[in-house]
């Protein structure tokens, strides 16, 4: 049993919650479908996005240094961080030099990846999440369970209880509008009192030395409006060549993520306002190794839209916390393995190989195919489950010649004569929570063929090939030995 399988079994045990979680995310997938259907050139856009990313990743050094040069010319200060530690250290130094203890953040997966918030908190800096979903999770002291919809696993009643505890809202009131107003009232004080703003970067435009930040709540815009210091952190794969490319990605991002035509706020940061500073930190943290990995470099094309999670039938029915990596779903399975196979191979079982993720991805990343590839690589790197390996070896042995296959079928038929409860119980992984075993046929197709019954029962074989198909010539097959 993998770590995912165990955690997923607990999630599924709450059938009503599973229904609700699956339904909420399927609704997002359905909205995304309607949006995708409304753009006639949708498939061409996906191809363009994939090709632009491939081009950029193939010329990454060129585009990153172009971005650095142009951004610097615009008055933005650019930093490079080889890993999470260096990124956190740079942020820490910028904050210390600037002064202030209150940092307002918009959503950034890179900040989660690098553990930035705990790093800052350990140094007495308050880092407040300004995206509502992220804020809810921060107040609950739980990580997000989805990269775009961080609080998707939290019911509004639970949010009501949380706000009641934190901000003394009306007991029992879980009206979404009421709760949103309460959150806004609290967050306003945080926005107004912040000394430092932090955002992620959705797209860094090399030719312009500018970067785009997309939100639905305007929280990045509001957050960066007051403080004198804006720190933006970006993975080095976020660079794109030019504004024309940006047009392709902004058309795909929100449609894929939430089924909106565009994010409510798509803001470009090009130069700091007079007296203010913008710093961009370009972070590697393992991405260069991914780029060198021919089997998995496509992962660097990811826009972080979350569409692969919404469509994943396993994610929808097992929830974000059933995955051991901080990003769940097909994306997280892959990114976790790129981070550390030893730590995160327990997620690789969380895939029925339906390939819906590959079909939904706006950058045409072959997510499902890569999970299949990881399964093969796990055996080579010694992370394969030993029971599964034994099962695969046994099947291979039983199926490698027809006589062994026949013996296996005979054994199966005998096992079927055992009392029902002896075979169909929770110790049988097929039976699980209620799935009967299939029954072996009294005679296999091969046995029926050998006995001439497949053909004898159907004498209307064409006259053109009587020797091959006639009921009287069962031994006439060229491969019969």
């Amino acid at each position, binding site marked *: 049993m993998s770590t995912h399988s165990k955690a997923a079994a607990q999630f599924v045990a709450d059938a009503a919650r599973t229904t609700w979680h699956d339904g909420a995310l399927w609704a997002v997938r359905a909205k995304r479908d309607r949006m995708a259907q409304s753009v006639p050139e949708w498939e061409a856009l996906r191809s363009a996005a994939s090709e632009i990313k491939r081009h950029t990743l193939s010329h990454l050094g060129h585009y990153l240094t172009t971005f650095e040069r142009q951004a610097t010319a615009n008055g933005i200060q650019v930093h490079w961080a080889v890993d999470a530690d260096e990124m956190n250290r740079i942020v820490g130094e910028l904050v210390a030099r600037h002064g202030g203890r209150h940092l307002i953040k918009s959503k950034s997966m890179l900040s989660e990846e690098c553990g930035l918030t705990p790093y800052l908190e350990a140094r007495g800096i308050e880092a407040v999440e300004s995206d509502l979903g992220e804020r809810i999770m921060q107040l609950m002291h739980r990580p997000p369970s989805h990269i775009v919809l961080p609080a998707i696993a939290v019911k509004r009643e639970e949010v009501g209880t949380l706000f009641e505890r934190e901000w003394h809202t009306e007991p029992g009131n879980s009206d979404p509008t009421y709760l949103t107003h309460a959150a806004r009232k609290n967050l306003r004080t945080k926005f107004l009192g912040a000394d430092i703003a932090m955002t992620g970067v959705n797209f860094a435009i090399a030719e312009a030395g500018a970067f785009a930040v997309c939100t639905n709540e305007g929280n990045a815009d509001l957050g960066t409006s007051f403080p004198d210091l804006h720190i933006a952190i970006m993975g080095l794969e976020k660079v794109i060549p030019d504004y024309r490319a940006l047009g392709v990605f902004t058309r795909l991002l929100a449609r894929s993520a939430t089924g909106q035509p565009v994010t409510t706020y798509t803001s470009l940061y090009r130069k700091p306002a007079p007296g203010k500073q913008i710093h961009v930190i370009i972070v590697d943290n393992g991405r260069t190794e991914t780029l060198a990995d021919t089997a998995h470099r496509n992962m660097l094309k990811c826009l972080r839209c979350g569409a692969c999670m919404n469509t994943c039938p396993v994610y929808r029915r097992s929830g974000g916390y059933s995955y051991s990596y901080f990003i769940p779903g097909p994306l997280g399975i892959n990114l976790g393995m790129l981070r550390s196979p030893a730590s995160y191979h327990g997620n690789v079982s969380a895939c029925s190989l339906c390939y819906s993720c590959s079909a939904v991805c706006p950058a045409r990343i072959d997510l499902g195919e890569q999970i299949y590839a990881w399964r093969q690589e796990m055996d080579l790197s010694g992370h394969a489950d030993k029971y599964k390996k034994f099962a695969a070896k046994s099947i291979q042995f039983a199926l490698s010649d027809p006589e062994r296959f026949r013996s296996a079928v005979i054994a199966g038929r005998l096992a079927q004569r055992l009392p029902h409860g002896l075979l169909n119980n929770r110790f049988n992984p097929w039976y699980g929570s209620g*799935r009967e075993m299939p029954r072996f*046929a009294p005679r296999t197709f091969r046995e029926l063929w050998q006995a001439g019954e497949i053909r004898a029962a159907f004498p209307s074989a064409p006259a053109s090939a009587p020797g091959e198909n006639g009921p009287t010539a069962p031994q006439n097959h060229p491969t019969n030995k």
Partner: protein
Amino acid sequence: MKIGLFIPCYINALYPEVGQASYRLLTALGLDVDYPLEQTCCGQPMANAGFEHDAKPLAERMEHLFEQYDYVVGPSASCVAFVRESYPGLLEHQGEKPCIGERTYEICEFLHDVVRPTTLPARFPHKVSIHNSCHGVRKLGLSSPSELNVPYMSKLRDLLEKVEGIEIFEPTRRDECCGFGGMFAAEENAVSIRMGRDKIRDHLSTGAEYITGADSSCLMHLQGIIDHDRLPIKTLHIVQILASNL
């Protein structure tokens, strides 16, 4: 045109009637059909679990057994998808001749794209719900994947429409995975069974009496849950419907 009938291991052992219907249907359409006796398994179960190299001897065996046939035709979309997609990699040492994968067809796509019959000798006066299996849809293109912005197309529906008296339905989530997934069904059994239950409910909501598709593996998984929950619907491989009057 010589056709080698590819009967996957589990169809051989559990559903010989699917193999029989395949043979009858192809033969009734005037084709020269043969069954290489020594076939066992294509190797997909091991490969999907992460042991593709264990499938190599089986791939070599398949290639040898079906060497002399113009077409290899089988009633199982996921097995055919595996042969077509993974065999070229597994059999790369045999580079001079075309790989078996290039002439291997799932039976519905073979009928739809190669044989192209105008009529079928079939009558099935029942309501059926089409089970669009993942590898059939997203690997073989038996129907248009719901994720893509492409015109609706379904080779299974096109064939079923030639059956007299039939009423055809599709579930709301028309190609969401049913949760079989090979070893996934056992390793992630809680999610797998939950996916299956949801899928059956979706099929049931169409009012259909039968769930039909091109993969007996999905149908085996669903039938196990139907039997356990005693649900008022049955599974039936599509060739059994297409050959229903033979």
